């Protein structure tokens, strides 16, 4: 093995093993209870509010793509998009999805079309529901600000991979009076969503969204497996702090292997 990566390999094996084990358990019927995340619950509330006001719902997954920029986050946003599109289709509320890259656009069109078909509303689907804006973050943000204002969006949902344009989108939405839910895995953009949105999803909650919205045992099982992985990291950190404080370098040396 490559020197300096043995401990990483062992940790990786343990975490991946935990994820795969709990996926198998979930597939065999084991039920897992997930703690409620207010921001995810608020998505349905926001859509309900838009239905009452008769105004559209807007969702955007950010400027990432499925290959390089924020790929894991963008994959998670596909599940969120499916849920929101299906909800909007079933409640007959106007839905606009905007994307910032070509590959996300292509997949999103398929997802939204399938969502409408699942609730028997294929006729209500049109190509304008999923709009490709721009890969440039500023062109993307200014276009969204315009859409939110022009189309009088009531629920502005921004969950995905965002950079500095997050504050422009969030503030524009707030100024137009929309209920806003924001979330990103870029930790340094979170303060802008926390300041401007009614609800915010913090980092890993974006990745956990799929488990909340679907009954897919794979999603739920992997979330439980991740939690065991986090527990392992926590135990390692606590042990490391105690041992280092006592002047015992054993764990430090082991991790460096």
């Amino acid at each position, binding site marked *: 093995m490559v020197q*300096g990566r043995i401990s990483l390999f062992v940790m990786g094996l343990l975490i991946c093993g935990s994820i795969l084990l709990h996926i198998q358990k979930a597939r065999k019927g084991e039920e897992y209870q997930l703690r409620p995340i207010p921001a995810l619950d608020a998505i349905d509330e926001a859509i309900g509010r838009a239905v009452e006001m008769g105004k559209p719902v807007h969702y955007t997954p950010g*400027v*990432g793509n499925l*290959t*390089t*920029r*924020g790929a894991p986050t963008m994959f998670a946003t596909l599940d969120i998009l499916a849920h929101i599109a299906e909800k909007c289709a079933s409640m007959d509320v106007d839905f606009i999805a905007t994307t910032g890259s070509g590959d996300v656009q292509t997949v999103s069109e398929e997802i939204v079309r399938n969502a409408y078909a699942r609730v028997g509303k294929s006729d209500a689907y049109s190509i304008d529901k999923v709009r490709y804006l721009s890969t*440039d*973050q*500023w062109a993307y943000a200014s276009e969204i600000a315009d859409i939110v204002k022009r189309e009088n969006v009531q629920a502005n949902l921004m969950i995905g*991979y*965002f*950079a*500095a*344009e997050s504050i422009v989108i969030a503030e524009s939405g707030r*100024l137009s009076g929309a209920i806003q839910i924001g979330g990103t895995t*870029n*930790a*340094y*953009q979170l303060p802008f969503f926390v300041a401007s949105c009614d609800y915010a999803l913090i980092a890993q909650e974006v990745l956990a969204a799929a488990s909340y919205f679907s009954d897919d045992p794979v999603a739920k099982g992997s979330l439980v497996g991740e939690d065991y992985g986090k527990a392992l990291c926590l135990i390692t950190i606590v042990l490391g702090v105690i041992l280092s404080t006592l002047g015992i370098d054993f764990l430090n040396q082991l991790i460096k292997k």
Partner: protein
Amino acid sequence: MWWEKVLKVDPRIIYLVMILCIAIPLIKPLGLPLSIVETTKQAFEVVEALQPGSKVLMSFDYSPGGAAELDPIARALVMHFLQKNLRVYAVTSVAEGTMYAQKNMAIYADAGKIYGEDFVVLGYFAGGENAVAALSENLRSVFKSDIHGSPIDQIDMMQEVKSVRDMDLVVSVNVGPGGAATADVWVRQVAVVYRDVPVILGMTAVMTPNCMPYLQSKQIKGLLGGLRPAAEYELLLQQPGPAVAMMDAQSAAHLTILIFIVLGNIAYFATKSKDK
């Protein structure tokens, strides 16, 4: 009643106050003193320790949006490389970054340095993290020619360079997720893999909290986050430039936001007690 009006103030009034507070110090500088913080000194010392002729891979990973904050950092670093007679290999993972690479490397050209011997602009590489991994392992897998179209093997200073292992320093001035290869990409694909090659990251101030763990764990050897480190770097070089000139305006902007926060809180508590 008055405080309720304050809470509901038109945001355009806030914008106007901010414009004035930023513009006035730019026109009439205040000359506020500026000390040098440890993190900037750390980055400075990494470059200072290099010998003349050392090789630096510098990536200008920013677009026009981030240029106001990042170009002064890049400029200060290039000036230091010039002072130390280092050889610079300029690349970028952002399409518009080639313009900033060429603009900043013009500092070398203007100082009489020879293209192909003292500096080279290899240009833009597509592919984000994968491309950083590829070029770190073998520069020629990503670049077949430089930005002018000259085959890479015909450039003198490329003869002794195959991979990042042959570099003495790697620098990325990075706009973050708005670009292609973000700051943590350089940590994952260069700093962690090629531990003997020091990495310095330049970034916007908002990204700095996110990247502090990398500096603390010594995965990166220097971190310049925002305009202030750029200003401090210019002072360390004893060549105050655009970053120093903008610090007064930044002070005024921060003070203005502080006043807004105080006003907002006073208004909040005043209306809260009135409601009670």
